[in-house]
């Protein structure tokens, strides 16, 4: 049996026995073959002894059991690492931030407590996946949509707490922002409800977010201050129709005006669907087409085009631009989508075209006009999550194909947030491509485009591969940390990262001599004095481990 650091085998055996009394012997896992299920499938420490691993796992079925587990962990000083379904792949998976922690598996807590169609919200437990919630809604023919990430196998709560995003409309794509109310087991085992849920017999727990007084929900995301056992989410009323169109632009200099126009239209809610920016001339697809490209191959490219790309700098050369104009290949292409009554979304599309028409040469095309609801069996003709349908097709992206002959063993997502401007896209490409070349990192080797999951900012999401070769993985890990620091010097920070990089990322958030980090630690010491809750998650270490690590 593996042991948590600093815990004797006798103490750990007592803790395990007490866990078993709470949840039943069959729900406490200590054999390697069982505990290994909670390794990070994409660990950047593949085949290395530094891999973060659990000592055991325990799977409670109720909030009351979670409270008892937490109290035992406190008594026995056993570190716990709660996970919902453990699908945080590319950002650490289900492995603990502190090796030897006991993984608290919440997937047995899989009740969908309420889906309210009339006011479009849901209340769920952490073991509920996007598929679960989607199927629940479909079976009952409720007229609400979920917003899901790609793939949709993860926990609704887990993804929100890791601040994941989806693909429908701006009100719902930010999964943490679209939550409303939490139930939390604190590190001392006490139960807390946030927002209106703090009122006994609350009538609007999932309908008004902040309650009264300090709104503390944010401190329970990407942190280690409690275990969320229930969480509410606002859902999207099922739209009547969907329209998707493209705006194509032919000049490199059109990038800035395109982004500026998009910002106005999105912030004014003239367009609210997931904006997807591609550069056909640079061979960069829209996110919504990536899986299709992977399945059928990218568009063919002439030798002349390929040669011009090879000599372009930051995605540009006058010759490349001239070639694109001659060949009718857009420099930039913005995919816009609209959800709502047909007459409304037609008007929104018309207004969007009017604004983009101010950019000389802008061309427009309607890709899809769909009456909803769509037959779920036909959803695979689209990028399913944009229609609120969860899918697993995203995993075809890493498969071996003629155009991807050496698939990786996993990946680490490098995902900095940068300003929503055309200049920032080019500047981030300049900074990161120069650094990546110097560090011999396989990122930004060609002109890369950011994504628009969040309003008002861009996010680059680039996969750093995990390979079979430990030396290569080590080089990539070190390079990854340097890229984080370089981004920080330019005022850019990651939105989410795997435990191995969490210190590097949080070091970037250093305003006023790391005041934010000190505040996190002050909270940690007050809320979790024994430091049993997810030690080290997002570089928030309990005092006894902090001092050892400094």
């Amino acid at each position: 049996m593996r042991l948590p650091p600093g815990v004797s085998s006798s103490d750990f055996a007592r803790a395990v026995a007490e866990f078993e009394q709470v949840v039943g012997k069959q729900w406490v896992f200590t054999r390697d073959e069982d505990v290994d299920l909670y390794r990070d499938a994409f660990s950047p420490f593949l085949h290395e002894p530094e891999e973060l691993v659990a000592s055991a796992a325990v799977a409670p079925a109720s909030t009351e059991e979670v409270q008892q587990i937490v109290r035992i962990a406190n008594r026995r000083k056993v570190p716990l690492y709660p996970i919902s379904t453990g699908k945080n792949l590319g950002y650490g998976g289900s492995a603990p931030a502190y090796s030897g922690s006991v993984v608290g598996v919440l997937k047995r807590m899989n009740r969908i407590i309420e889906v309210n169609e009339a006011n479009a919200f849901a209340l769920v437990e952490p073991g509920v996946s996007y598929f679960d919630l989607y199927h629940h809604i479909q079976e009952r023919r409720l007229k609400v949509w979920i917003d899901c990430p790609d793939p949709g196998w993860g926990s609704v709560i887990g993804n929100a707490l890791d601040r994941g995003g989806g693909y429908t409309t701006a009100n719902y794509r930010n999964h943490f922002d679209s939550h409303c109310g939490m139930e939390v087991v604190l590190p001392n085992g006490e139960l807390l409800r946030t927002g209106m849920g703090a009122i006994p017999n609350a009538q609007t727990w999932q309908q008004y977010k902040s309650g009264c007084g300090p709104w503390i929900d944010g401190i329970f995301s990407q942190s280690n201050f409690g275990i969320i056992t229930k969480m509410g989410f606002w859902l999207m009323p099922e739209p009547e129709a969907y329209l998707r169109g493209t705006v194509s632009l032919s000049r490199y200099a059109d990038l800035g005006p395109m982004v500026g126009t998009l910002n106005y239209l999105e912030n004014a809610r003239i367009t609210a669907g997931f904006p997807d920016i591609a550069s056909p001339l640079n061979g960069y697809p829209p996110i919504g087409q990536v899986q299709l490209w992977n399945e059928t191959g990218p568009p063919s490219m002439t030798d002349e085009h390929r040669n011009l790309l090879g000599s372009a700098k930051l995605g540009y050369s006058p010759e490349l631009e001239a070639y694109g104009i001659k060949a009718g290949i857009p420099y930039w292409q913005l995919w816009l989508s609209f959800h709502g009554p047909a007459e409304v979304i037609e008007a929104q599309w018309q207004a969007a075209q009017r604004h983009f028409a101010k950019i000389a040469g802008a061309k427009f095309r309607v890709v899809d006009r769909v009456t909803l609801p769509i037959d779920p069996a036909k959803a695979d003709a689209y990028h399913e999550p944009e229609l609120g349908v969860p899918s697993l097709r995203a995993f075809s992206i890493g498969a071996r194909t003629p155009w991807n002959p050496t698939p990786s063993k996993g990946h680490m997502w490098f995902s900095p947030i940068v300003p929503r401007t055309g200049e920032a896209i080019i500047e981030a490409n300049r900074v990161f491509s120069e650094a990546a070349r110097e560090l011999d990192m396989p990122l930004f080797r060609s002109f890369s485009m950011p994504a628009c999951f969040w309003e008002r900012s861009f996010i680059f999401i680039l996969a750093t591969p995990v390979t079979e070769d430990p030396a290569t993985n080590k080089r990539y890990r070190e390079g990854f940390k340097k890229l984080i620091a370089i981004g920080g010097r330019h005022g850019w920070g990651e939105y989410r990262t795997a435990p191995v990089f969490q210190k590097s990322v949080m070091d970037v958030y250093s305003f006023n001599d790391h005041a934010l980090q000190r505040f996190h630690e002050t909270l940690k010491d007050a809320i979790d004095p024994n430091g049993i809750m997810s030690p080290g998650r997002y570089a928030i270490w309990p005092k006894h481990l902090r001092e050892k690590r400094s």
Partner: protein
Amino acid sequence: MHSGSLVANLVSGMLMNRRKFCLSSLAAAISRAAVGAGCLPAAASAALPAAASRQSLRLYKFVYDRRYSAARAFGVAAEQAVSTAGIAAIAGDITALWSRELKPLWCAGAGAIAGMTTARTLFCLEQLAKDHWMRVVIRVEHAIWGKQDISHRLTASEPTIAQIGSALAAGDWPTKLPAALAACGFAHGAHLTRVMGSTCRLATTDETLVSFVIA
């Protein structure tokens, strides 16, 4: 599969050992309506005695990726194998198969499967199986190297390795595998890995295919 209309009685199945149930019965399905929303948690494998002897493995279905010739040969042979299991052809994505068939069964503690797919497809199935405390109990990676050769990297319990190994040694190994997998018992405990060479290349792709059993 999600209409709530299927299904039989298995509420009591939640109380029995999930793996025993999975291995000993394929009849099971459960009225999801009877247990409320979401999956029914199944009893965990840890309830098995540590030194459990090999148990018979009843497969629900053989899954194969129809895009690859070796997998198609596997699928044709699976249909003819002496087994009560059905077959399912996919083209990489397992969303439909999983959500319509496997998920309800796995929620109920049933639905052991065997198959030959790409490694990515198996990765998805493996991740989903973990949600139900199921795992890959037999894994054979068929890696192509050189121009004609395949190496089979077989990970399973020791008795299973011997049993599958003879099928892999055959020239037409994709057609031999379904019966061998269906005949395999399941032995709890440590897995071993053995690499076997083969000069017979039936696949016409550079994709590394993987054969497996999930239970």
